[in-house]
């Protein structure tokens, strides 16, 4: 029975997506390697380095479905090389053409290239889902561009904002991620084919042409320098995914916080037919998806750290660092796609409650306009004086339970500077959202 949560048979895909676990499934991993071997043989045949018929046979047999994996499994119990047991199966299937399998390549050439193919396929998912999230946020920002709510800092009520502005901030962040992913993709889709210590010594004088041809068949570019010990691209994948999933965790945390029983401005809502309640408290509707995002994200960041540390390779090859990368890459890709998949669900089903937003906004409706009052009064009595005076009245309001409006009206110095209109406005915090709406529009313009 499987023991890793990725592979659970009953409670499936709590921390993963089937789409991404399929990429890192063992047979798929083998297939990437076999694809590399087929492309290599084909390229070498085209350049006249090995017989054409041999390459054709290798290509036709380089398929996990064609191989007897029992041989491979048995071989792995004896041989500690990561690739040779699979190649043994391939060679046997190819008969005499087996001589030309993996001709001049090193194990790490095959496995690194296979890993890049898996990363490419994972990136497809990540870029697609981040793009969908952007579209959903865009619609949300448009819909609620002028919906007033309270802004908070230090977890305390600060001054009014619009919900559209909050979403626009998320949107701009996701948009930067999309740009980051695009530029990452442009840098890292490089295969590896450079032989045991990066000299291409066994590939012969045509080594570089073989490399270019092989990689172009796989849809990758060839790397000019060998990168067996240069793992910066892999570390960058980790960093990009970690930053992206931290954004997702931030959004999920905000939904969690604003969904607390006393706030209820946003709520995670389950799609029809799904329940996320408590086993013992029938009334509970728990934001479990937001919580899962937080939990998964807490693993993604350290994995990015592992990939950073795996950059410290010694000499021309260093499996101590490489193997820690092998453990980290599948996990970070799978976790990242899971986080994005969950965030999509959260945003798609998000319940937004304008009445609760207005209710909370009006809880301390006079007090939260203290900044506006300070600037208004500051023009006539000096900003620092106004700050001091207001501080005094606010404390009085806190201590006595009277409204700030009443105290302002009772204060001779202040009341002469405030018009009846100003007093009227004090009861309408929703009017004080500054340039929020324009900022939302600007962000929307910028990202579309």
């Amino acid at each position, binding site marked *: 029975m499987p023991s890793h949560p990725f592979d659970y048979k009953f409670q499936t895909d709590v921390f993963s997506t089937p789409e991404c676990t399929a990429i890192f499934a063992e047979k798929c991993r083998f297939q990437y390697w076999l694809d590399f071997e087929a492309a290599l043989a084909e390229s070498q045949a085209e350049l006249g380095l090995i017989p054409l018929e041999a390459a054709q046979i290798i290509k036709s047999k380089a398929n996990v479905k064609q191989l007897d994996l029992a041989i491979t499994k048995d071989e792995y119990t004896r041989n500690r090389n990561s690739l040779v047991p699979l190649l043994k199966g391939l060679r046997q299937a190819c008969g005499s053409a087996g001589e030309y399998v993996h001709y001049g390549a090193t194990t790490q050439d095959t496995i690194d290239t296979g890993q890049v193919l898996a990363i490419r396929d994972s990136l497809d998912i990540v870029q697609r889902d981040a793009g969908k999230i952007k579209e959903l946020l865009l619609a949300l920002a448009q819909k609620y561009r002028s919906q007033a709510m309270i802004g908070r800092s230090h977890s*305390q009520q600060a001054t009014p904002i619009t919900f559209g502005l909050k979403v626009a901030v998320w949107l701009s962040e996701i948009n930067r991620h999309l740009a980051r992913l695009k530029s990452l993709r442009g840098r890292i889709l490089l295969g590896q084919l450079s032989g045991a210590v990066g000299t291409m010594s066994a590939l012969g004088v045509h080594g570089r042409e073989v490399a270019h041809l092989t990689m172009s068949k796989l849809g990758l570019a060839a790397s000019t320098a060998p990168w067996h010990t240069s793992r910066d691209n892999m570390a960058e994948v980790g960093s990009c995914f970690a930053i992206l999933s931290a954004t997702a965790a931030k959004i999920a945390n905000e939904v969690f916080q604003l969904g*607390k029983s006393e706030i209820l401005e946003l709520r995670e809502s389950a799609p029809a037919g799904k329940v996320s309640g408590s086993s013992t408290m*029938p009334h*509970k509707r728990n934001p479990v998806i937001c919580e899962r995002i937080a939990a998964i994200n807490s693993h993604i960041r350290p994995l990015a750290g592992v990939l950073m540390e795996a950059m410290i390779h010694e000499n021309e090859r260093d499996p101590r660092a490489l193997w820690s990368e092998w453990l980290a890459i599948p996990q970070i890709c799978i976790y990242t796609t899971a986080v994005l998949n969950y965030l999509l669900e959260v945003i798609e089903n998000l319940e937004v409650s304008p009445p609760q937003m207005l209710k909370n906004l009006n809880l301390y409706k006079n007090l939260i306009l203290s900044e506006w009052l300070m600037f208004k009064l500051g023009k006539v009595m000096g900003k620092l004086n106004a700050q001091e005076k207001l501080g005094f009245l606010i*404390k009085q309001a806190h201590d006595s339970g009277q409204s700030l409006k009443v105290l302002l009206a009772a204060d001779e110095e202040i009341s002469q500077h405030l018009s009846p209109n100003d007093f009227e406005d004090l009861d309408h915090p929703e009017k004080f959202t500054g340039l929020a709406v324009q900022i939302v529009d600007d962000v929307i313009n910028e990202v579309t």
Partner: protein
Amino acid sequence: MHINNGKTTIGCECISMQQCNSHSHITDSRFFREGYATDEARKVFCDLRRMQRWLDVEVALVQCQAELGIVPATAAQRLTESARLENFDLEAIQNDISTTGHSLVPLLREWQRITGGEAGEYIHFGATTQDIQDTAQSLELKEISNIILRDLASVIVTLGELTQKHKSLLMIGRTHGQAALPTTLGLKISTWLDESLRNFERLQRCLKSLLVCQLSGGVGTMDSLSEQSQTLIENFAIKLGLHVPMTSWHASRDRGAEFLSVLALLTGGLGRIANEICQLAKNEIGELAEPFHNGQIGSSTMPHKKNPELCEQVVVLAKLCKSNAATGLDTLINEHERDYRAVRLEWIAITDSALFCSAALGMMKKILPGLQINQDRIKDNLNKAAILVSTEALMFMLGEKIGKQSAHKLIYRTSLNCNDNISDLLEKLSRTPELDDKFSLQELQQAATPTVPGQATTIIKRLIASIDYEKLGQAQKAIISPCSLTGILCR
């Protein structure tokens, strides 16, 4: 950084270099250090105090060697007198460290110069640099641990008082950020108390293996320390108030790593308390608040703000200590018999974590005794949540007659249609055909009224009875001694 006519210059042009005190680490910042370290803790790690401590350890060594007849008594006498950093040319030491790249030899050279004569020949006789520095680090940790235990004991005593005082103060308990069932404030605080008690134990236990001396020579063989090396190290440890290690720990850094883990646990526990206060201080909740004093400014631009600054800073410090615990684990990978790459990680990680932990405790000592508890809001929130909190009790009552699973389904379905209104829910339930008049409205209302949870006071009573107040009292009264033989302290 200033940009003039496209040319970039770096440096503070507004003040002269003489005014610049070259303190760039935040724990030493004249303006902001309070948020990251207490003055008391900073003194433990002070640069000068550290060098004097190294001298103290060297003095202890030479005294022990004289007692065993390994070096002349007169030399030990002379060296004891001369080991006073205040008489040393510090600038010469600084320059020499820069030239030699060695962390200890320049200090020893200056000591030899000040001592004069033959006595200087017996300085650092058979020890290795790391013997001296590791032993001094143990003394440093003893000192800071006494401070930490003292302050933690004080936090624990306050938590005990709060737990008892509010043991029956009914409030809403929350899970998944959602109102769940009633609890009491005392019961909530009792979990803070229990965790802090465990951290107190943890630190005391860790100190038993941590506070050892180091005297093992170049590769841990004690080769150049004479045949009496075993007696020597025992006497050396007694003189310094440390334990004797069974083997050299030059390359075995589990003690420091454990200390860093314990500090991370301890500070993390404080971070949890501080974060809970922050959360319950949200305007929409308003149940707790950290003390806010007159003159304190919440926001530079919003005069009404009362920010939980102290609590937030404790959370920051907890996260910093957490990161250093991971660095502590990195120090475990040492190569061969000595590996300075590990020790140099300790120098920064241990210093920082100890300072951060002391600052977090200092803040908790302000936050907890002045904790503002708004009983009206606590009651108000509980009442508003009544519909939510009563459902478990209702489920069990209905369950007796219709089965628990059916009751769960029935309440879930009914509560979806009653707008979070308890009377509405109870009325609908009393009329539902599925219950077939099995329960009167009054019975339902009774079941839905929150009461002090059954076991709260028992749990609290048992916890309080388990506290060893005598031990805490001793920790609180501990005299924070500088562990200095010469009694010379930095200003």
